[in-house]
């Protein structure tokens, strides 16, 4: 049954127009890496890749935006268009509806973001810098998990999940967490940077990472777990009524 809901959700996501936009978004790092390579810049390729390309673009924009559009739609859209009733009127505990949907959104998010990370990283570093690319690939994988879980929860808490999600990505993580260091404990972006640095085994400054690797990993997993727990609780309480 879970497999069926997973496949159904994957099909829904693949047929969405926004998924095409996300595919185009995933191409942007590749394009920028190509321009960097062709421009023969005098910047150190590894530093530029870590700070600008992967740390600045992929982890800051591509990963959260992809997770937002996918996570907010997997259940939120079904509740809005009325098709959720076909899943919620079945003798299934709600977590059996929630988890396959989260898994489908996560798979698609990772399928878009991880190749974009690896290919653009390798392209920019001219085939070297394997540790950096691996570090960011793992960070993108785990960061996507936390983002998707949080944005699925957001869609169950509010009808304005997309707007709130954008505020979180650009205002909270993009601006405020850069100014107030304490907020980085509530920033998935900074968890991801901590993991990237940890896995790559390089200097923390290279990644602008504030949190240590173990701490970042614990925070990212705890965020995902708690968000899913709350989302399940919320889905158990969600009410369905005819649109007025």
């Amino acid at each position, binding site marked *: *049954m879970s497999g069926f809901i997973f496949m*159904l959700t994957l099909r829904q996501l693949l047929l969405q127009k926004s998924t095409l936009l996300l595919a185009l978004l995933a191409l942007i790092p590749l394009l920028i890496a190509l321009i960097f390579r062709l421009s023969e810049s005098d910047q150190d390729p590894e530093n530029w890749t870590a700070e600008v390309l992967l740390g600045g673009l992929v982890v800051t924009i591509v990963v959260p935006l992809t997770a937002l559009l996918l996570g907010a739609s997997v259940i939120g859209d079904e509740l809005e268009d009325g098709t959720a009733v*076909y899943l919620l009127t079945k*003798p299934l505990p709600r977590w059996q509806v929630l988890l396959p949907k989260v898994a489908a959104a996560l798979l698609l998010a990772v399928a878009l973001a991880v190749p974009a990370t690896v290919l653009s990283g390798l392209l920019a570093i001219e085939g070297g810098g394997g540790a950096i690319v691996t570090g960011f690939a793992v960070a993108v994988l785990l960061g996507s998990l936390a983002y998707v879980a949080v944005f699925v929860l957001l869609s169950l808490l509010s009808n304005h999940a997309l707007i709130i999600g954008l505020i979180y990505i650009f205002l909270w993580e993009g601006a405020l967490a850069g100014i107030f260091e304490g907020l980085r404990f509530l920033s998935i972006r900074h968890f991801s940077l901590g993991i990237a640095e940890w896995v790559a085994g390089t200097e923390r400054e290279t990644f602008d990472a504030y949190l240590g690797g173990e701490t970042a990993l614990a925070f990212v997993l705890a965020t995902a777990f708690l968000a899913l727990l709350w989302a399940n609780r919320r889905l158990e309480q969600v009410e*369905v009524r005819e649109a007025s």
Partner: protein
Amino acid sequence: MNGTQEMKAGVPALSLESVSRWYGNVVAVNDVSFDLGPGITGLLGPNGAGKSTILHMLAGLLRPSRGAAKVLGESAWHNPEIYRLIGFVPEREAVYPFLSGFDFVRASARLHGLPDVEAAALKALAEVELTDVKDRASGGYSKGMKQRLKVAAAIVHEPRILLLDEPFNGADPRQRLRMMDSLRRMAAAGATVVYSSHILEEVERLAEDVLVIIAGRLAASGDFHAIRKLMTDRPYSVSVRSNDDRGLAAALIGQAPVFGVEVMDGALTVRTSDLMAFAETVPKVARAAGVTLFELSPTDESLESVFAYLVQR
């Protein structure tokens, strides 16, 4: 609740116990109680009366603000096990447009954990006569076909209780008759079928019992014919157009079913206590008086006016 799908002796299939439901400051359902058993029950009321809210509470999709909605004596809210017994057909047209009709019903069968998914889906599709188009994408179905598809998905596990929210919306007359036949067959087999409608004739043709909901309250309940009699015994106003309204008014005033005539601004309005008798009388009287009739039309046949009359009673 066990999943044996057996009705418990003496326990109503569905019940509302002093149920109220409000959305913010708006009271959608106000202190409604009833018990329902096997057979077909029509939930009748004008749009916005609270019928849909009642069905959603019975289906465990809305939590009563006060009171309890029960299925076989157990709370419907927060109880996924009731869906082994219940089939629910929402009013909204939405289906998964990329799935074929067959896949849509098969999905429902699979989510119910049925042992033979294919056979159950084919049987349900045959019941609503969609077998011929089962392989077409459901997004291309007409509104009536989508309604029947939703019914097929709701009955695929042969539920003992079927809840349908405005199931005849968008169906053409032939499709309505077919769906009515399907529901009658289910009820004859011992199922409890409850459906909502704002159209009197839909309830009259199908329901054995009726619950009349007006402004969130239960205005009348019981045998449909007794309630229908309450409705038909009320005074009616009929607008009459003819080539000599004054002459026709004079001729009609002495007739038994007529107890008032009024000619105002060139229009004749007749008040009668028996619409059918009046409809039979007026052509004869017009012919005898040498008057040509152009049109007869009830002026207060809207369901709202019928309901308003019932509430006054």
